[in-house]
């Protein structure tokens, strides 16, 4: 493939801008609290942009368009689920989670259940989910750089990992907030401007619409194969709707809000920002169908401008999209790395000779290097599929813990451990199956490919039943803790 100069320049510009904003943000990073949660002073508008920037990963930027192009309308459940997950998070988790006063998911679990074993279990799961989510980001960076410049695919992973590491090491959460707010708007622009031009080109061409081949599977909002397709679609819906609240990089963002009310308002702005963004990938998919770009679906967003607009114009548009894709890898990987590094600092380096910012930096190196190595070694699952699995694990573990922990006094440490373990093993079976070369057919394949529809109810039930059976272990402070979770901060109450 021929090296495209504008794309290389665009990738370099995004990397430089990211580092520059990160360094600028460093001037505001002074304390350990700055590194972890930006000292909890981020206002809704900025915080919402940062959440949007962090959340819109390679799966959203490249994966969704490719999936819709190949498989059709049922794949629209991915972006719908990615967005609806925030509505579920808003109504069940947002304000109480902020009011809990915890830094991370393990912090929340320990504060709610007064158990260091639950805490350790949560730490392991945060790291597992974070890495499962990071690997496809690095792989996506590889194929993007390969498609844009012809560089070997490991180079893209290395570039993204390096920029993320430098940024996280230098500024932590505070500088990341500015970087990610910038990257949301960059990603939106990088997808919106080419989309407008390409739709114009299509109208000019006078080609028929993407629905010219009516009656095929493309316009069906559920998977193929009768009831199995229906199961796969519902399972995907459950994983994305309920998994969002359990993603470590999403949760850590809520602690940066000043209070519970701001956490809610931030989430509504996030809903609007995500909605605006997700209108665009289907446009690329539809145009890709018209112009027959189904050959390399994972990078359809990058290839389409070159395909539809020959010459320099197409090159420049393609460079813009490549820049957006790189912003997607950088922001999501940064957020995940900060989240994983945060829990590693607290639980692995606690009591070691590393303390404070030093421990955070050591953790960041581990948090980035491990998945980067795995990305080069592991098989490529397709970006959106792999991210979908991370959602399934989050939905099967942290979703029950958060929902029951916030709304039900009866949750016990033993119940939480049993539920977390069951959900993790059940959804982990699906991940192992997808990663292994072993394949089967029929319902076994379907149930393992998309485990959420059975693993999430199983985790909820286990957590509930075991908590009921160990009701004498309900922590003594639970009523006080419920007051802290649910009452507005303005009312002067004893919150424990």
């Amino acid at each position, binding site marked *: 493939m021929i090296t495209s100069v504008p794309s290389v320049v665009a990738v370099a510009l995004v990397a430089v801008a990211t580092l520059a904003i990160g360094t600028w943000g460093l001037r505001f990073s002074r304390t350990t609290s700055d590194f972890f949660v930006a000292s909890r002073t981020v206002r809704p508008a900025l915080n919402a942009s940062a959440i949007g920037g962090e959340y819109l990963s390679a799966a959203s930027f490249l994966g969704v368009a490719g999936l819709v192009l190949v498989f059709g309308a049922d794949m*629209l459940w991915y972006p719908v689920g990615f967005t609806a997950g925030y509505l579920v998070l808003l109504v069940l988790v947002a304000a109480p989670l902020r009011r809990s006063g915890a830094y991370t998911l393990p912090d929340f679990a320990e504060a709610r259940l007064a158990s260091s074993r639950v805490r350790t279990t949560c730490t392991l799961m945060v790291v597992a989910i974070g890495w499962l989510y990071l690997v496809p980001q690095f792989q996506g960076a590889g194929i993007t750089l390969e498609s844009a410049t012809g560089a070997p695919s490991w180079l893209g992973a290395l570039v993204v990992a390096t920029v993320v590491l430098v940024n996280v090491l230098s500024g932590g959460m505070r500088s990341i907030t500015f970087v990610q707010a910038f990257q949301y708007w960059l990603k939106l622009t990088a997808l919106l401007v080419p989309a407008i031009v390409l739709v114009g080109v299509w109208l000019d061409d006078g080609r028929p619409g993407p629905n010219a081949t009516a009656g095929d599977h493309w316009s069906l909002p559920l998977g193929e194969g009768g009831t199995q397709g229906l199961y796969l679609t519902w399972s995907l819906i459950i994983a994305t709707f309920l998994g969002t609240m359990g993603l470590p990089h999403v949760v850590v963002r809520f602690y940066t809000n000043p209070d519970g009310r701001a956490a809610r308002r931030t989430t509504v702005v996030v809903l609007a920002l995500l909605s605006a963004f997700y209108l665009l990938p289907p446009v690329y998919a*539809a145009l890709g169908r018209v112009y027959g770009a189904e050959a390399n679906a994972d990078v359809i967003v990058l290839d389409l401008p070159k395909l539809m607009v020959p010459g320099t114009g197409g090159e420049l548009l393609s460079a813009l999209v490549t820049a957006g894709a790189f912003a997607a890898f950088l922001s999501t990987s940064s957020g995940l790395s900060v989240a994983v590094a945060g829990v590693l600092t607290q639980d692995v380096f606690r009591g070691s000779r590393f303390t404070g910012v030093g421990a955070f930096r050591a953790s960041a190196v581990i948090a980035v290097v491990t998945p980067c190595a795995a990305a080069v070694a592991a098989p490529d699952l397709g970006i959106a599929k792999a991210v979908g699995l991370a959602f399934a694990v989050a939905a099967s573990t942290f979703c029950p813990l958060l929902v029951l922990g916030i709304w039900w006094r009866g949750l016990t440490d033993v119940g939480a451990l049993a539920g977390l373990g069951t959900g993790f093993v059940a959804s982990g079976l699906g991940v192992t199956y997808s990663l292994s070369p072993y394949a089967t057919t029929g319902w076994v394949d379907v149930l393992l490919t998309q485990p959420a529809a059975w693993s999430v109810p199983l985790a909820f039930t286990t957590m509930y039943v075991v908590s009921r059976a160990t009701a004498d272990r309900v922590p003594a402070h639970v009523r006080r803790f*419920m007051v802290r979770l649910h009452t507005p901060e303005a009312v002067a109450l004893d919150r424990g």
Partner: protein
Amino acid sequence: MSTNPPERVRVTGPPRRTTSRRTRAHEIDDQTLLGTVLMESLLRAQLRLAVLTLAPLVVIAVGLPLAFHLVPSLSDVRVLGAPLALVVLGVLIYPLLILLGWSYVRRAEQHERDFAELVQIVES
């Protein structure tokens, strides 16, 4: 400038029964029956609101795939030239999500204001 400032005089209003100035906050702090009822009602109101907000989402998530599964000819339906599923899942669902979120926040904050008012009533 006076060299002998007048002696200070303490000015006070009529004596008040200071013990009765307590608000109901202590009922929650002491976990009395009334405090428990107040907390229960807040939790229940917020949870009911959450369920009501999510209900339309559940109807769509369950109903849309099921409808297309049971009536496959729905995939031939066109809205302004585009397939029905694409119009609903690609465009229409997003304003609905924002609207649900916005109305949830308004009502959740209202519940909290009601709660704050109830708690800050001065006991006689």
